[in-house]
């Protein structure tokens, strides 16, 4: 092998404290080095030409450049060498600027170190093999899971960039929690008014395939090349035939058989229903657990009244398969319920607040529905027990959140804001009412957020009391609230007409299951984990899978939307080329020596190691070995260091390469 060594002076940057001429001279005597030269600015055009020329003149096979950090110019020199016909992976960099000249003043010892580093690079390059970047084709079709505001935003952004999107929502309608909100902080604009147009846009978008009442069942493959199985649950209504006239809903006799999920249990719905009037798609679904026909075999009134013959009692779940290039997970959150915990649940309920026994103790979403003009009380403040207007209302913040003893250590981030909103909405509706807010801290970091909270206190007269409530109980039609004002140091008891609990935003119950299907990590609370908390907040750790909105952590609407657009941008970056090029630094298994212990599989954080069956000519299974999926492997090399039989090696950083470097540095 003929190797060329090129020592850069970087003007005075290297030249001043490293004897470049001397170094180049002594490197010439390293076995295998055919030419060794120095130059003032190696990265400049003349410098690069010098390298190219030397390659051509000497018929070099490999190149070592001793210059600045590889993070600066590795790419530059790989490209230059490639221009002269050398495989880019036969170029190694010795960092003699950041790691030598800039940190050492002593010329002799600095020069010695520079020589050592070059020798180490030379020995490594001798063991390098020509490699080609990995090219994977990209299916330019995105899957968005979850149709809340985050999923809607991501789907629209990607679709508007011209790519196809499959949007999967598990409920009968898209819209998520935002569709339940009355007005939104910090502007108090109507939630439905800004959301509905976007829902409709999704429905009408030619590039978006909307699958509601559907769930992702399996995901195979890797970045650019996923295969996704989606279960479309039986609606009992044929989508294509239904025109959303609503006759079936009107005539269904089971008017009060089920609590409306959308109204948070404060109203009823029949067996056949759409969650709310603006639902998208406006196609009803039959809840088979409630429908008289499914229970007794009689009724079918809906079928009779349906002019479009759209009811299909025999409909079954269908499984769709989709080819997908990138995935956005936007499955949102759930609100913590204070009811008694289910057996086996790691979370404690709120016994001291009555485990949800008292009718006039409601949660934030129930308040949203009560405040909403289209809600069960048509926007009037009427407490659930007797429909009276509450004159004294107490809001309690941090219920569930920041409560280690209930299992949730984190702050839910939005409840300070929505409580302030609730107090304001209440005061706007009940002018002679009193609103008290029990809080621990007010967290209102955001544009116009603090000003919003102050307005609630200063203009609308909400009374804020710093302290956690110890107990709630019902006495004579009042909810007795036992608190302490920790600022004044006095106990406070309030006989409230209604109490609203700002309960924690928690992960979807099924989120861990979905994360496992996708092969992405989730935190101990069930929120999907980002790849890096600062620099890769929308990437999951699996290539091609991105996160948006409250599925990742408690978030408000502006944050959810920004994250969704960011995730969409990441998808578009991926889709902007037909093929994906990746450094070939990936692990590779030697099937002949692999003993199939799968320790490598256990340590791989990317699920990149798969099982592969080796069969003989007759199809008889000989053994099962590890196989590294190129698309998933990120090249960390952990498997390599773990393998007891040394059967999996990280290309570019193989054992021989590192050994060669070690030996070169420590010549006895």
């Amino acid at each position: 092998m003929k190797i060329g060594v090129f020592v850069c002076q970087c003007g005075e940057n290297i030249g001043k404290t490293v004897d470049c001429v001397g170094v180049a001279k002594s490197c010439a005597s390293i076995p295998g080095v055919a030419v060794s030269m120095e130059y003032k600015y190696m990265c400049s055009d003349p410098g690069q030409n010098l390298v190219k020329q030397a390659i051509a003149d000497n018929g070099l096979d490999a190149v070592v450049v001793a210059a600045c950090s590889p993070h600066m110019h590795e790419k530059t020199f790989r490209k230059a060498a490639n221009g002269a016909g050398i495989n880019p992976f036969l170029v190694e960099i010795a960092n003699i600027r950041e790691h030598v000249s800039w940190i050492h003043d002593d010329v002799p010892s600095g020069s010695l170190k520079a020589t050592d580093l070059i020798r180490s690079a030379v020995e490594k390059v001798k063991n390098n093999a020509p490699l080609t970047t990995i090219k994977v084709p990209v299916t330019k079709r995105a899957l968005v899971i979850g149709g809340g505001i985050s999923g809607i935003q991501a789907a629209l952004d990607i679709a508007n960039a011209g790519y196809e999107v499959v949007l999967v929502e598990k409920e009968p309608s898209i819209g998520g929690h935002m569709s339940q909100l009355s007005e939104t902080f910090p502007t108090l604009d109507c939630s439905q008014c800004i959301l509905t147009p976007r829902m409709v846009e999704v429905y009408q978008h030619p590039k978006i395939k909307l699958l509601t009442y559907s769930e992702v069942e399996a995901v195979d493959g890797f970045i650019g090349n996923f295969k996704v199985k989606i279960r479309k649950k039986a609606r009992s209504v044929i989508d294509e035939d239904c025109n959303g006239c609503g006759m079936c809903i009107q005539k269904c006799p089971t008017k009060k058989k089920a609590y409306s999920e959308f109204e948070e249990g404060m109203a009823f719905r029949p067996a056949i229903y759409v969650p709310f009037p603006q639902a998208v798609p406006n196609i009803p679904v039959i809840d088979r657990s409630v429908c008289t026909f499914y229970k007794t075999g009689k009724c079918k009134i809906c079928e009779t009244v349906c002019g479009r013959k759209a009811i299909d009692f025999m409909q079954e779940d269908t499984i769709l398969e989709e080819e997908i290039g990138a995935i956005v997970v936007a499955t949102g959150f759930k609100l913590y319920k204070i009811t008694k915990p289910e057996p086996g649940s790691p979370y404690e309920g709120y016994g001291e607040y009555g485990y949800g026994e008292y009718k006039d103790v409601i949660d934030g979403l129930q308040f949203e529905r009560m405040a909403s003009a289209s809600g069960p009380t048509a926007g009037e403040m009427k407490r659930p027990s007797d429909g009276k207007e509450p004159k004294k209302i107490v809001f309690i913040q941090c219920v569930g959140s920041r409560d280690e003893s209930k299992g949730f250590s984190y702050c839910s981030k939005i409840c300070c804001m929505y409580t302030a909103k609730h107090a304001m909405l209440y005061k706007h509706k009940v002018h002679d009412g009193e609103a008290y807010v029990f809080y621990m801290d007010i967290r209102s970091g955001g544009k116009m957020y603090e000003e919003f909270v102050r307005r609630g206190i200063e203009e609308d007269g909400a009374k804020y009391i710093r302290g956690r409530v110890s107990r709630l109980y019902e006495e004579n039609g009042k909810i007795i609230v036992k608190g302490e004002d920790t600022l004044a140091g006095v106990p406070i008891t309030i006989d409230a007409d209604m109490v609203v609990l700002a309960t924690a935003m928690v992960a979807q119950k099924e989120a861990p299951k979905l994360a496992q299907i996708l092969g992405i990590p989730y935190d101990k609370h069930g929120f999907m984990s980002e790849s890096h908390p600062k620099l890769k907040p929308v990437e999951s750790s699996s290539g091609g899978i991105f996160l948006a909105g409250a599925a990742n952590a408690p978030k408000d609407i502006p944050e959810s939307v920004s994250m969704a657009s960011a995730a969409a941008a990441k998808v578009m970056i991926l889709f902007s080329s037909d093929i994906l090029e990746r450094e070939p630094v990936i692990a590779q298994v030697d099937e002949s020596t692999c003993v199939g212990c799968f320790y490598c599989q256990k340590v791989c954080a990317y699920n990149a190691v798969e099982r592969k069956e080796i069969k003989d000519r007759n199809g008889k299974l000989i053994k099962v070995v590890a196989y590294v999926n190129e698309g998933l492997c990120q090249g960390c090399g952990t498997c390599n260091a773990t393998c007891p039989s040394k059967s999996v090696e990280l290309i570019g950083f193989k054992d021989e390469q590192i050994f060669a470097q070690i030996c070169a540095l420590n010549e006895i």
Partner: protein
Amino acid sequence: MKTGYYPGCSLEGTGKEFDISLKRVLKDLDVELEEVDDWSCCGASSAHGVNHVLSLALPARNLTQAQNQGLTNIMAPCAACYNRLLSTQSSLMKDKVVKAEVEDLLEDKINGNLEIINVIEYFQKIGVDKIIEKKKIDLSWLNVACYYGCLLVRLGDAGKFDDEEQPTSMEDIVAATGAKPIDWNFKTECCGAAHSISHTEIVESLTKKILDNAMAHDADVIVLACPMCHSNLDMRQLNIKKHHPDQKEIPVLYLTELIGMALGIDGEELGMDKHFINTRQLLDVQQQKKVRKV
């Protein structure tokens, strides 16, 4: 195997009727207890309040007594004793250093295998069916407020036998007697038992709130399972009446007394004549029902 019995000091004194009624009722239910040999005081809140190691050593002595007697479980009817015995065993098993210190004082070893139960758990074990089966008197005219107090359910890390905030186990037993357990708000509110003698003014105020809430929810009687709570809720009504002449009285019964009433046992045999608040009226109705039934 018999259940070990740790009556505790109060059941020899102020809580005598708890002991009397318990033993009387068990006779009718055909179950027997075996008293822990030469048991000593558990130190209650006094030792606990001022001295950590002693607060463990005193109950621990009873654990070793029971162990040495070959018992596998101890039933302690007094909520304070129950709490002390249970948490002592649990904390000694968790903290080896303190365990060694205590064992040094005791000159004996703790094995940590005793099952420590309270009177409610004990009746759960005997089975509510047995009460229903042996029931002789209709108590459906009686509204009962079940009072747990604080120590019975707040066991910290030591264990859990019922919900800390909304317990219902006593209600289940009361329902088996035929009486009607009512819903009320102060069943786990503290009556200040620790200050029973030292700060009567506090105890009076706390007790009054509890009594008033029970009566506001139409309770005819308060039923409980702790001699300390009993002396507060029963005896203190006299003091309260001194300061609040209009205060209504409400009889306070031990759970065992209520069970005894349902089994048709005479009030005197249950020690119900020892209360400060008269139980005569209750017993009269009980007698009428008895006569009518015959």
